[in-house]
């Protein structure tokens, strides 16, 4: 399964970055102790004027890597650029309506999700995770999203929780969706945030709002990957955390994944709110 790598613009002086390397993630070892290398190009696309626009292309040496940051691209909060690995010297269309399919670095059937390192820097510290946006998700023009709040923090050291829902559609799409955040127990709507396809929807929640949970996030119009950033209070030495939540399918084993996810989503998508 090949993947896209989203680079997002964030507030509070947070810089995000994507580090993409030339090596295969997992492979049969055989007698080798060196990972297989791929000389590729990393193409960067953002949406503008109703089309994808090529914003740059970086050769990835073999061995080697490329780091792209939101600061060098001047991304505004919520703005999204997609990093797409493609074969070296591919002639890229400058403003396509559909993103090129990303190259896979798999060389055999070794189990792996094709990830890159997504990193977030703030006040001299950084936090990273291995992430990706699967092509099969990006090919969905419609879908639903239900996520919960296990990563929201309300401890005394917490200044801000930032929920970032990344949505990516391979075919350019101007649809506007809304992300609803509500209290699960009281079914009380806390916030509604509109967002476009191929952007990152941001919701900022302070420690008090997080403590008043449990909170649910839902969208009836699009899929997405929620990333939770927690930042320390400005008067304390800096510390931060970044992680994404498991999608509902991950709460069930194999054949029960889809039926379980459908049942769970139906309970929360159908909930009437006050």
């Amino acid at each position: 399964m090949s993947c896209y790598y989203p680079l997002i613009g964030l507030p509070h002086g947070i810089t995000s970055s994507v580090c993409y390397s030339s090596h295969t993630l997992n492979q049969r070892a055989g007698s080798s102790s060196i990972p297989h290398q791929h000389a590729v190009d990393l193409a960067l696309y953002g949406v503008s004027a109703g089309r994808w626009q090529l914003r740059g292309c970086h050769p990835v040496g073999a061995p080697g890597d490329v780091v792209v940051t939101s600061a060098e691209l001047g991304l505004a909060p919520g703005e999204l650029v997609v990093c797409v690995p493609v074969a070296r010297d591919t002639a890229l269309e400058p403003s396509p309506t559909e993103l090129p399919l990303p190259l896979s670095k798999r060389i055999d059937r070794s189990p792996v999700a094709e990830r890159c390192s997504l990193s977030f820097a703030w006040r001299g510290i950084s936090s990273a995770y291995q992430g990706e946006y699967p092509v099969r998700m990006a090919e969905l023009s419609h879908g639903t999203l239900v996520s919960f709040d296990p990563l929201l923090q309300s401890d005394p050291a917490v200044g801000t929780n930032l929920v970032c829902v990344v949505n990516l559609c391979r075919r350019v799409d101007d649809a506007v969706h809304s992300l609803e955040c509500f209290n699960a127990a009281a079914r009380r709507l806390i916030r509604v945030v509109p967002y476009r396809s191929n952007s990152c929807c941001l919701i900022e929640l302070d420690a008090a709002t997080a403590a008043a949970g449990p909170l649910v996030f839902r969208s009836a119009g699009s899929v997405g990957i929620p990333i939770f950033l927690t930042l320390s209070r400005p008067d304390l030495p800096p510390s931060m955390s970044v992680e994404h939540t498991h999608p509902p399918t991950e709460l069930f084993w194999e054949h029960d994944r889809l039926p379980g996810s459908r049942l769970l989503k139906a309970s929360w998508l159908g909930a009437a709110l006050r």
Partner: protein
Amino acid sequence: MSSRLRTVKATLGRILYRGSLPYTAFPRGLGGASISDQFLYRGDIDATRFVAENTLALLRGEPVEVRHRLRFFDVRGRHLRDLEVCTDRTFETIDLSPLKEISPQLEMATFIHTSVYEAASEPELLRLHRGYCQYRKTPESVWASVHGNFGGIVARPGESPDQHQLLARRRRAFLYTPQHRFEPNNRATLYFMNACRSAETVEVLLTPAQPHARLRIEPLGVGCCVLEGHSGYLSFRSHLPMCRPQVFIEDERQPQHLDVFHT
């Protein structure tokens, strides 16, 4: 394609490519069980806690009483103790400081999460507990969060603490190279957990192909190595189907910050 043909095709795929499956191709007797990832406890930092999901409450969209059981194992995979919490909340943050109070010398351990419901409310769907661990370096730090990564450890209500069905399988040797570039001014601590039935060896290689450490890890146990001053990537050679350590990054210039991620 008819559903019968799809089933036959999927079964054939599992037989032909079972060498690439992280778990046993045909798990048996899973009814009534819950399946857990393998999680890491650290006793050498300020605090560790765990966020447990209440699957039935999430399914129904309403409070449902659940008994969360966390079962801890030492570095060699031997049962240490259980910790239980009853709640009806969708997610419960469980403080693991009782373990620190009882075993203050315990630097690290693994644990699994099992949930038990009243028989009448048991969901028919097979629950997979993937949870979230949170680690705090100092009382003035935010918690560094990481989700469950891999496990396939089956626990059934009423079974003794040393009776677990381990679905992960030793496979042919893999070379796993995470996409994280290590920086020379950071200290990285890598924790390798073994969810397979057999003791496994992990070779840690500084790319390209320079040996750094060799760890032997018992089933349900954990091994650890420290990396300092390295600039570049790491590879891991092992027979584990998913040799993806949990990595902690520290920078002595920022003593309150701790970064954690799964590779």
